[in-house]
């Protein structure tokens, strides 16, 4: 007993199943790519082909009447990619150390500041590099830092980043303060993720700074600057969206926690 052939026009199973499948597909295409888009009142298509392209997901050029929103201030030009500065060598660190001589008066001899300038020792290299670049392009405004970076090249900045990343961080002073709610859990109802999810205790996201041990005044100022849009160099408003939703008490608690934590 040999089997009949399936793939043959004489086989009714073959023709019927393919016919029905093709019919459903065809009707689906007509409805989904023509009828529905064309009967949608808010979409103005220039004819059937336009509707089909749109339904297929092709990008339409925005019409001239549509306004494209751009920031009216300089935004960062740095593309942050994880591991982008991982491969620093000793030469780079050495060059960074030399360049850093002019930074010591404010940021300390070993990257630990006595004044209220931020500590740089042990900071992630991406952060140092990005902030220097942002000072230079004006994305982050600072009357103090801007003239100091004006003559630095990108490769200088990479060397400085390598050097500061290589310096040891401030060590733990042993104050076991418990984490405030905003740091440990964020505020989900206001769309704030836990600070630690980006800044290091729970997970580290490329571009977010190591905050522990920074001067409390510095942290406080930065958070308020993000909240008021005075500082606006964060990509996709990552930090501004956080800071804007924070209460003054939370800004206080977070700044104090990070300043006293190490």
């Amino acid at each position, binding site marked *: 007993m040999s089997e009949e052939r399936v793939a043959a026009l004489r086989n009714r199973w073959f023709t019927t*199943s393919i016919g029905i*499948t093709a019919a459903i597909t065809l009707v689906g295409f007509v409805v*989904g790519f023509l009828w529905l888009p064309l009967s949608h009142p808010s979409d103005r298509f220039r004819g059937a082909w336009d509707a089909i392209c749109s339904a297929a997901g092709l990008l339409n050029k925005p019409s001239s009447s549509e306004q494209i929103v751009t920031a009216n201030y300089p935004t960062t030009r740095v593309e942050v990619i994880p591991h982008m500065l991982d491969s620093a060598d000793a030469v780079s660190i050495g060059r960074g150390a030399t360049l850093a001589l002019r930074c010591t008066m404010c940021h300390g001899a070993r990257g630990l500041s006595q004044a209220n300038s931020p500590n740089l020792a042990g900071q992630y290299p991406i952060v140092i590099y990005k902030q220097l670049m942002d000072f230079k392009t004006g994305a982050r405004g600072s009357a103090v830092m801007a003239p100091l970076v004006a003559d630095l090249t990108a490769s200088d900045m990479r060397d400085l980043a390598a050097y500061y990343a290589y310096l040891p961080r401030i060590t733990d002073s042993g104050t076991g303060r418990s984490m405030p709610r905003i740091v440990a859990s964020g*505020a989900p*109802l206001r769309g704030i993720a836990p600070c630690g999810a980006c800044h290091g205790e729970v*997970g580290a996201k*490329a571009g977010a700074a190591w905050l522990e041990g920074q001067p409390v005044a510095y942290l406080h100022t930065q958070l308020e600057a993000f909240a008021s849009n005075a500082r606006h160099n964060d990509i996709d408003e990552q930090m501004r969206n956080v800071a804007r939703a924070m209460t003054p008490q939370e800004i206080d608690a977070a700044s104090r926690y990070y300043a006293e934590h190490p």
Partner: protein
Amino acid sequence: MWNSKRLILAHFWFAFAGFGIALLLGEWQMFIRSPLAAWISDPDLYYRSVTAHGTTMAYVLPTLVAMGFGYFVTEQALKRPMIGLHWAWLGWGLAVLGTISAIVPVALGRASVLYTFYPPMVGNAFYYIGIVLVVLGSWIWVALMAVNLYRWKRDNPGAPVPFPMFATVAGAYLWGWTAVGAALELLFQIMPVALGWRDTIDAGLARVFFSWTLHAIVYFWLMPTYIAYYTIVPRAIGGRLFSDTMGRIAFALFLVAAMPIGIHHAFEDPQVGAGFKYLHSVFTGVVAIPTLLTVFTICASVEIAGRLRGGRGVLGWLKALPWLNPAMLGTALSFVMLGFGGAGGLINMSYQLDATIHNTQWVTGHFHLIFAGAIVIMYFVIAYDIWPHLTGRALGCFGLMRAQLWLWGIGMIVLTFPWHWVGILGMPRRMAFYDYTNPALASLAMPVIMSVIGGAILVVSGALLFLVLLRGQFAPRSEPEAYRFSVAVRPPHRVPAALNGMGLWVGLMIALTIVNYGFPIAHAIATPGTAVPAVMVGERP
């Protein structure tokens, strides 16, 4: 015959061991984010747990059950020794190795990306390597199912392929093809980043690849359950399968229509055109046909059993059913959950309605009701049914089995109904922490506590499962009678060639995949500037 008993037991035991651990993790997750517990303050622990729970429950448990049950069907339905026993052990070994390789980085907090991967998040490479190994192991199973069917047909030209084998091979082919989507995503998008060869990832394209897998994987999970409905239940309750042909058509249609519809998981994704979303909705509707065919056929088969047992009248046959039989009880509970879950699914698959429950706890409730409920309860029934034939020892404690199944059904409903409800209230999913002291969330507290109770009932049910199986392992030896699958009212003597092989249906499945996915994928690949920097998870410099 019977050279694969140990192989099948190894599959089931590994599946259930993973299940037991993941079950505890699930309940822990429910508990620590409920108002009953103080917040643990470390969301990462929570996401580790969710990743381990999802990976084990979604990849390990159903894959190993499908493989083990598939080997069982091969020998019992074809009535001859399985070909390729060594390969089958290799597949099992790969699945075990892969599970370990995946779970270790998760436990270490290096891969808290959840089982659906969520690019642009990228975790440790060993997590993904582990998943690939599990899939490779299961592809060996797919190949073995194909080879065994092919050889049998060659030796029995023109004879109807036994229906259990037909259905099993349909499930195998469905899995073989649907796993390709996630495999493409892993190999070409995620692994190059995880291995440090690339820094950016096209998250939109990766999501489309994953959707290729994500719908039909549910039908792969469903396959052992549906096979049990058709081939175990009617026999176990003393009835007959209403129609062999109807069963074949249902499985053929699953093969064709379950696959090219996954974009309904990407309704809110901007990178996919609305036309394709519509097309996928249409075929999602088509999948209802084999599901309804199944519901009809199984209800008819059960009615036959009721009438054979002396039931009379319009509803009298219901009373005559053997309600104390675990297979009967499990099927009834499974159908109840399938009914509610299916109704909820209609909402998910509707473009506009979906927007109201997208990414809320509704979705978690939905897939637990369908998968953990309707599907997994039949995994228990399968185990109870075939265990004596694997161990050569009777499973005597029917009371315990019934208690286990009842608790699973009740627990799942107590768990998932409140979940649906809080979803409608807008409670988002995949969050570690909810502040119930906030007035806006206060109304969620009670339903969430109910869900925790539902989870606790499930843990008790899980413990009973192990009790039943372990007692079975130590019961006195007894030679069970030969295993039988359900017999149809009219056993087939000749089957149309189209329903005696997979060629036509696999062809349609692949063709529809190309039609429904070809353009969205090609378009995503061809569009420049869509790659974004990957977000490395679990790195602590």
